[in-house]
């Protein structure tokens, strides 16, 4: 059954799953339904308006922090 998705879950999912991130850029509704989440109309509108290249930079920076060869 589709469930609402909170922002913590969304960010953790986007950070940890590159395929999910790519799917979000292509089709957010399909990507979210693929993980069992049911986005609202406003959420989909907001997702479609995103500048994904700037968001990709954020995830690259976040990811740098969790890499065991760099900071652990």
């Amino acid at each position: 059954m589709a469930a609402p998705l909170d922002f913590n879950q969304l960010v953790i999912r986007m950070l940890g799953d590159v395929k999910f991130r790519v799917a979000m850029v292509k089709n957010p509704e399909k990507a979210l339904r693929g993980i069992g989440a049911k986005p609202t109309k406003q959420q989909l509108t907001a997702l479609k308006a995103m500048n994904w290249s700037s968001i990709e930079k954020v995830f690259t920076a976040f990811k740098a922090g969790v890499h065991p060869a760099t900071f652990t």
Partner: protein
Amino acid sequence: MTSDPLVHELIEAGAARLEETIRTETPGLAEPALAWIRSLTLTNRLADYFHHPLRFPMLRLPGWAVEHEAPNHRALFADTIYSTMAGYYHIRLLDDLVDRQTGAPLELLPLAALFHTEFQSAYLPHFPAASPFWPVFRHRWLGLADATVARPAPGPDQAAALFARATATVGAVVIPLRALTLGMGVPERFDQWEPVVLELARIDQLMDDVLDWQPDLERSQPNLLLADGAERAHPGESSAAWVVREGYRRGLAAVRKRLNELTPAATALGSAPLLEFLAGRRAAADALEDETSAGLAQLASLAVWFDPPSA
């Protein structure tokens, strides 16, 4: 690559010595032990873990305090680096096992005996039992062991408790600092360097937590950035939403503030490598903010549709 050729050489030698000790003294554990150690680097080379320029300089930092004396005390310097490597793996092993969600398998627990023995016995040729080195060793090492299991509970005191834990864990680097300054005949430098080293340990933990907030959030681990968020987030606002709205920027600003406040004391020590290190950390914080500010603003505008704060 480390900037100091002597330190680089001694790290390589220390890594080879530790690998050989593991193979010789604990052949039954050697295979999984070396596999775990190598899993901590991208290159599968033990030494590379300690060469990485962005890691806390646990092997280089004590040497900066005795930069001019070190080449004349090569055996002590080599043993100190070897000891610190073994000590690091001891801490890391226990930390991974306590954490239970990452890293070392439980079968490696007996390896703690090897790391502890090598960490301590490397100093035996240099300091007799009555040496003032040993009280510092004992106090810092046992304090670190106690801090390994500390998981400060959420609340207004959590940040202070996490900084205290960082002082006890990363701050154990004052053990090799004590060894080098005492053994090389400049004990007064220990008192001059210790507060700077301990503040660097706290800054390093803060930077680490700014970068590690997502895995810590996912695993419900205590984290300085998330502790700040718990106090400052709007009612109903998720941790991630607070981080992208203001937390990440606040965390980096706190790192820069502490680095700036430390600079006068570091300058007074007259160590060029130390000042270069501080400048490098400041530049890293600046670069992270530059790279992320536009995307964080985007994510913050998105967050309001996922968990709008309650009024």
